[in-house]
């Protein structure tokens, strides 16, 4: 609507261009292997883009302060908190969410580990935990218990007391080691 107003008021092409660039950034990104292009509000958070625009509701929102980690995804291969990033900041990036961690019908060793070791209860923190743990194992394939605990410092679980999450990650590390 504003765009039309600008046009009818005879704004020069430069102004219109300014408006399009500044006000509704057009973003193109790859999510779980699929390329998407959308015009988004500047203030749209990446987590809301994933949940509301793309319908990928496995990524959750559990706090307001980048503290809980339930919104953890991979941006260009690294774990980040998608609640603290604008969708526009991710323009041109490749994103993996929990839905895309393993091919459809298969489980990633971490997903398997969480199930085998009872690493989840209500499941709300689980996608973020798994995405964070995947980053940890990519940097450190054979972490100690303490390294696992420190690696999870950005993720809160209220159900498990972390005991079985640690074991789930140990399971995945072991399984991946065998696979290699």
């Amino acid at each position, binding site marked *: 609507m504003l765009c039309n107003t600008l046009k009818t008021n005879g704004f020069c092409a430069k102004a219109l261009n300014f408006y399009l660039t*500044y006000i509704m950034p057009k973003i193109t990104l790859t999510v779980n292997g699929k390329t998407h292009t959308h015009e988004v509000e500047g203030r749209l*958070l990446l987590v809301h883009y994933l949940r509301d625009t793309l319908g990928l509701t496995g990524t959750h929102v559990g706090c*307001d302060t*980048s503290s809980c980690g339930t919104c953890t995804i991979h941006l260009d291969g690294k774990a980040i*908190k998608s609640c603290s990033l604008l969708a526009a900041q991710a323009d041109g990036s490749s994103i993996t969410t929990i839905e895309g961690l393993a091919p459809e019908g298969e489980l990633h060793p971490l997903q398997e580990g969480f199930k085998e070791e009872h690493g989840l209860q209500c499941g709300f923190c689980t996608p973020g935990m798994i995405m964070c743990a995947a*980053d940890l194992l990519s940097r450190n394939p054979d972490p100690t218990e303490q390294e696992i605990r420190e690696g999870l*410092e950005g993720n809160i679980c209220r159900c498990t007391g972390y005991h079985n999450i640690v074991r789930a990650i140990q399971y995945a590390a072991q399984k991946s080691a065998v696979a290699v």
Partner: protein
Amino acid sequence: MIPSSVDYTRASSVGEAIRLLAENPDAKLLAGGHSLIPAMKLRLNSPALLIDIARIAELRFIEDTENAIVIGAASTHADIITNQYLKGLTAMIEAGELIGDTQVRNMGTLGGSIAHADPSADWPAVLLALEAQIKVQGADGERIIPAAEFFTGFFSTALDSGEIVTEIHLPKAAVGSASAYRKFMQPASRFAIVGCAASVTVEGGVISAANVAFTGVSDAAFLDEGVASALIGKSATLENIEAAASAAAEGDMHINEDHFASQAYRKHLAKVYAKRALAGACGL
């Protein structure tokens, strides 16, 4: 939690970012965004325009030059702690590993952190102890600000409004000198209640130069001259370090207070952490 409406643009060069900043007085620079976006979500900060500088290639590098390791301001905390050139600057690695969490370290940047100048952030203490030089650029060109002059107060720096931090120069560790960072964490936010960076040069068993810097203790990170001067000329023993550390956070200064740490307790922790950081730097 949703920010107020804001326009967004991505600058492709430092020059463009400086021009945009000059043209838009209500604009803010956005690097990792890990201080700014949370503040915007709480609507504590509502800029009209965000100028994203995170992807400016000339700001993201780590270089080994003759006299210094030079870090581009948009380098992330994760870039720093995994970089081979920085291995000799132990305090940088130790501090970087204690910032936030994995996810924050993957997004947050060194330049963003120091420009924000949170009084509990880790980097400022380390840059002070390592005598970093901070290169900034504005419409009038570049200038170098020593770290000791950069952090001027509570969330405030020597940066002018149109300026961007571009590089951080860390003098290479002199022979016989070493550094360490020790942090007593606020358990919820994991910011520093007390963070202490120490850099010590030992020649023939005797301390010839020392810097001790704190974060979290006062309204800005600061060099504690009292501790440092008490060390010069002393042999690097635990007893001497403990004696010097007992002078930490004394004198006429504001000491922070919150429900995790009163002023008295913070002051006490400063002495304990000065001792621990110095002991770490001296390999004791």
